[in-house]
């Protein structure tokens, strides 16, 4: 079973909660995907007794899953740290998906601000899930800062491009065999999830690929199956590709017609 900061989780499928056609479809997709961790965010509440935040929160609570708050939209360590503190006060969890955006077009994380924020938050007792690029040195710095989970992207958020640099992902897996690695962002198809799980990744986190699918509930189920297939394939020990054919049928005892 996957353990993240000492908490056992029953699924390797982490799901975002944004962009669904309706709250009911979000709920149904989470159930179909058998997810155990949902990501949530914090935004300004409306005055005048609208309670929009509480209605959403009630929906999430009814699902009975772990909640991973994020710092989405923050462009500096300072903003991300304050958002994380507000999230901890509200959600009563030390978990935080740390996002510090460095480029508004690609939503690429700012590695320098990310490490700065991670160090301060870890020192303050947070259990940080850093949304990061697939850079090896950045990974090392985040671990030095106190992170015990890494979440590299495989492509820009919402791009649905799939793993653009499998070599970099493989390198991270090879360097950090004991660290939970979760691919976060860029997955578009179930086969993308299978690919990264076959590389030995521990889990995937995605949102848009399910929420914006023609049928989000079916897509959640497809991703669940794809993630399990990739994980089981990885554990079963896969063959390495070869340049030449190797006959699968034994040659011994073959008839000779001449």
């Amino acid at each position: 079973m996957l353990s993240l900061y000492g908490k056992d989780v029953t699924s390797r499928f982490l799901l975002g909660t944004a962009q669904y056609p309706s709250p009911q479809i979000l709920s149904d997709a989470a159930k179909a995907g058998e997810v155990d961790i949902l990501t949530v965010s914090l935004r300004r509440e409306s005055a005048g007794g609208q309670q929009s935040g509480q209605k959403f929160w009630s929906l999430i609570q009814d699902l009975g899953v772990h909640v991973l708050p994020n710092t989405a939209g923050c462009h500096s360590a300072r903003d991300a740290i304050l958002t994380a503190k507000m999230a901890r006060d509200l959600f009563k969890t030390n978990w935080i998906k740390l996002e510090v955006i460095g480029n508004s077009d690609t939503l690429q994380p700012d590695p320098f601000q990310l490490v700065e924020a991670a160090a301060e938050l870890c020192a303050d007792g947070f259990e940080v899930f850093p949304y990061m690029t697939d850079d090896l040195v950045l990974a090392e710095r985040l671990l030095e800062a106190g992170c015990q989970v890494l979440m590299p992207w495989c492509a820009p958020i919402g791009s649905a491009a799939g793993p653009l640099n499998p070599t970099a992902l493989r390198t991270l897996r090879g360097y950090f065999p004991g660290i939970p690695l979760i691919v976060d962002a860029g997955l578009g198809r179930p086969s993308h999830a299978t690919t990264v799980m076959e590389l030995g990744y521990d889990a995937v986190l995605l949102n848009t690929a399910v929420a914006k699918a023609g049928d989000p509930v079916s897509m959640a189920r497809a991703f669940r199956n794809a993630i399990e297939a990739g994980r089981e394939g990885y554990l079963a020990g896969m063959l390495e590709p070869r340049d030449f054919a190797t006959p699968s049928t034994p040659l011994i005892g073959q008839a000779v017609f001449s």
Partner: protein
Amino acid sequence: MKLIVNGEEQTVRAETLIDLLAELEFEGEWLATAVNNDLVAAEERVGFRLTDGDRIEVLAPMQGG
């Protein structure tokens, strides 16, 4: 007193953060608050006195990826 609440100027009678939330009808227990870029935890709102010009953020759970 004049305050900036979630980016909008408000003229209010409240002198503490807890009274401000009631006056502006920020209802529900699932709120997070900050004043001038510092967290004000839920249990600290009762005694937290506001001053003219304070910038207050009132956040709530929202969909996110």
